[in-house]
């Protein structure tokens, strides 16, 4: 409780200056205008005679005078809080900037309701002084007394000094309040920016929007109080929205994730159609007749805001925030939510794009597996048929070299199965999970070979309309099979040599060096050593390729495999064209075994295929006549019989003279025991010869 000072008697000049200093101190001491004015009123009353003091400030917005503070001693004054400028002494003083002294209110001109109220309450004189600062007028300070002629010239001079101090104080407070308002605004903007940053951080931390949506809602809740947040995705036909993510702890289950609702008639649909935020406060099912609205209202939602999730490329859906309380979401909240929605839309678009990429990647991987399986099943690369010693030697070589990364050179006549062996090397190596890339050097035009092998950049040459990855790069970590390597043109050989030795090369039209880890398996039916001598193949490349040569014997050198191959191909083609062949006549088999097979297994395969087609019954009908030598080959036939005799003798010796049994000569030759006996008799072979 403040002590109420008594009205001052006439004060000395010293007292007044001291009082003025106290006023200055009070101005410096108080930051609250009301408290300051209250304090001033009490201090002034010690020096100046008055029974009421009021401080009126001009309100620029309403252009009127507003009583900022009033103190009356003795009784409450029924004065209005605001006054028209022209209808009040304070207004006039503020307007003119000149003080006004009314020594006797009873003789004063009519000056508005305040003075009338003062007069009716027993006041007889008053003094009104402008409150100003250097650059503007702020209001007026009014003192009133129950005495007539209470304010002399000395009082007026003193009160003008006081009014100046009050002006400074009012200005200080106004500046301070403005500074505080700015500070609050900046703090609010900082909080919102921080929120956006946090939302961004949450969005980039996880690509699954559903997983991170609760975190987004949590960030938002600190700035926009809400009970419900959801993310709805527009379905492909654009007529439905699906609730992809929902945060609604108080929910009863009427609204739930994965529910579909119509775009038409929903608030979200309108927000999408208008492509701007929509605030529904209160949420009214009559305005939005879609079922989702009535469900939300049944859940207790009273106000809600829908924000369209739209990017430059697509319309994705809506983000909505709702509250169980009316007016919980303000217009400035909507602006913030719109900014959050922009970020969520971008993240959502990225997430959807990533999901699509992942799906395509999986699909490609599945397709790759399927195609690899197709290649394997179509060409039966695992199916190397034969049990001959020569073939076993080759397979042992394959097993030896496969686990290493050594370059392999496969040598063999056409049709001997070089690609089969190359694939076997790849399948038995640690690179088996990676790609096996085949390139037939003879099948590609010379001009395109470099581009096929090393790739090219866009615009490297006329026709290079897109960038192309070469086979060497495609086979990175895998195996590159260079078939018919002898057909690589001489000018390209140094580049291939560098790629093999240094494991690096440049695409056509590029200066950037590509590094690859590719195993090369080369094959040829040509005599590379001879080509080196003739100068058509580089010696250094030959040595680089010839690290581990594997020679595949021609079929005529492993005749014992022919019966196995014939039966294998016959069964395969029977299955393919749905034939049933039970037997192969021994004469037919003998003829097949005896033939020289210049085209090797490929020729045999095609011959058997044709025979199966030509065999309507259960007996394989091979056109043996085609296997008989022409007149010019009679001498060869004689030699062939000699060769057959020598071959049977050799196998008999290897089998220790045993004809039957699992390791006997008949099995080794792929013949029945009785057939071998017949042949031995025919060729004049006896046990003595063995």
């Amino acid at each position, binding site marked *: 409780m403040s002590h109420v000072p008594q009205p001052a008697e006439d004060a000395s000049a010293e007292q007044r200056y001291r009082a003025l200093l106290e006023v200055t101190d009070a101005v410096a001491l108080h930051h609250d205008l009301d408290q300051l004015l209250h304090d001033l009123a009490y201090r002034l009353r010690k020096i100046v005679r008055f029974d009421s003091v009021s401080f009126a400030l001009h309100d620029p917005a309403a252009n009127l005078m507003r009583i900022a503070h009033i103190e009356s001693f003795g009784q409450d004054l029924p004065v209005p809080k605001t006054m028209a400028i022209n209808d009040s002494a304070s207004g006039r003083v503020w307007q003119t900037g000149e003080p006004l002294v009314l020594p006797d209110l009873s003789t004063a001109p009519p000056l508005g309701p305040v003075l009338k109220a003062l007069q009716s309450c027993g006041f007889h004189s008053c003094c009104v002084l402008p409150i100003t600062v250097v650059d503007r007028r702020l209001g007026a300070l009014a003192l009133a007394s129950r005495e007539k002629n209470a304010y002399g010239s000395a009082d007026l001079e003193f009160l003008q000094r006081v009014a100046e101090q009050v002006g400074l104080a009012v200005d200080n407070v106004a500046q301070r309040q403005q500074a505080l308002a700015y500070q609050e605004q900046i703090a609010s903007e900082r909080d919102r920016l921080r929120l956006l940053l946090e939302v961004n951080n949450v969005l980039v931390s996880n690509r699954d929007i559903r997983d991170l949506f609760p975190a987004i809602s949590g960030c938002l809740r600190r700035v926009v109080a809400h009970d419900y947040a959801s993310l709805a995705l527009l379905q492909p036909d654009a007529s439905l929205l699906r609730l992809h993510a929902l945060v609604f702890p108080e929910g009863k289950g009427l609204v739930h994730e994965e529910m579909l609702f119509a775009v038409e008639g929903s608030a979200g649909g309108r927000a999408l159609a208008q492509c701007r935020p929509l605030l529904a406060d209160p949420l009214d099912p009559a305005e939005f007749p879609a079922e989702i609205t009535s469900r939300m209202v049944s859940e207790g939602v009273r106000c809600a805001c829908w924000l369209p999730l739209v990017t430059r490329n697509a319309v994705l859906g809506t983000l909505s925030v709702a509250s169980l309380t009316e007016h919980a979401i303000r217009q400035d909240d909507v602006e913030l939510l719109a900014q959050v929605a922009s970020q969520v839309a971008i993240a959502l678009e990225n997430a959807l794009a990533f999901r699509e990429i992942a799906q395509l990647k999986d699909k490609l991987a599945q397709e790759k597996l399927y195609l690899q399986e197709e290649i394997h099943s179509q060409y039966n690369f695992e*199916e190397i048929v034969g049990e001959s010693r020569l073939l076993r030697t080759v397979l042992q070589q394959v097993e030896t070299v496969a686990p290493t990364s050594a370059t392999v050179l496969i040598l063999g006549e056409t049709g001997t199965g070089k690609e089969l062996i190359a694939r076997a090397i790849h399948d038995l190596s640690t690179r088996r999970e990676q790609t096996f890339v085949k390139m037939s050097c003879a099948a590609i035009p010379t001009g395109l070979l470099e581009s096929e092998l090393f790739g090219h950049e866009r615009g490297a040459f006329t026709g290079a309309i897109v960038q192309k990855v070469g086979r060497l790069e495609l086979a990175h970590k895998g195996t590159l099979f260079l078939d018919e390597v002898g057909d690589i043109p001489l000018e390209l050989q140094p580049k291939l040599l560098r790629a093999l030795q240094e494991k690096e090369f440049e695409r056509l039209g590029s200066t950037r060096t590509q590094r690859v880890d590719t195993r090369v398996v080369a094959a040829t039916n040509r005599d590379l050593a001879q080509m080196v001598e003739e100068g058509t193949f580089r010696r250094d490349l030959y040595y680089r390729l010839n690290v581990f040569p594997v020679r595949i014997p021609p079929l005529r050198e492993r005749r014992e495999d022919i019966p196995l191959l014939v039966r294998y191909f016959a069964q395969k083609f029977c299955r393919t064209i749905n034939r049933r062949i039970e037997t192969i006549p021994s004469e037919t088999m003998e003829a097949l075994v005896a033939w020289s097979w210049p085209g090797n297994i490929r020729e045999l395969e095609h011959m058997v295929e044709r025979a199966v087609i030509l065999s309507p019954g259960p007996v394989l009908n091979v056109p043996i006549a085609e296997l008989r030598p022409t007149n010019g080959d009679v001498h060869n036939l004689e030699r062939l019989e000699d060769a057959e005799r020598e071959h049977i003798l050799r196998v008999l010796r290897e089998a220790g003279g045993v004809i039957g049994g699992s390791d006997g000569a008949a*099995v080794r030759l792929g013949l029945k025991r009785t057939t071998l006996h017949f042949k031995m008799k025919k060729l004049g072979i006896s046990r003595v010869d063995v």
Partner: protein
Amino acid sequence: MFRATVEHNGDLVTLRIEGRLSGPCLAELEQCWSQIHAGNGTHRIVVDLKEVTFVSSQGKQLLERLCRAGARLTADGLMTRALVEQIADSVGQEKHI
């Protein structure tokens, strides 16, 4: 591709093999055989190779082992029939083509 199917018919158990009998499938077949063999006591077991398209040399060795362990091999088609004959010859078993 490889598939093994087990069929029970009275005291006869048929192990039907389809596809290629080579590579990793062999271990699978051996395991399948062990389970059948362990759980069938005196039942007769037939290994049906009618739908087999290829048998590697390791596959042939496995079939020989099954044959020695009491399995009867049946086959259709030129290649598999010749193979079954050869295996039956080597283990001294009656042929069941």
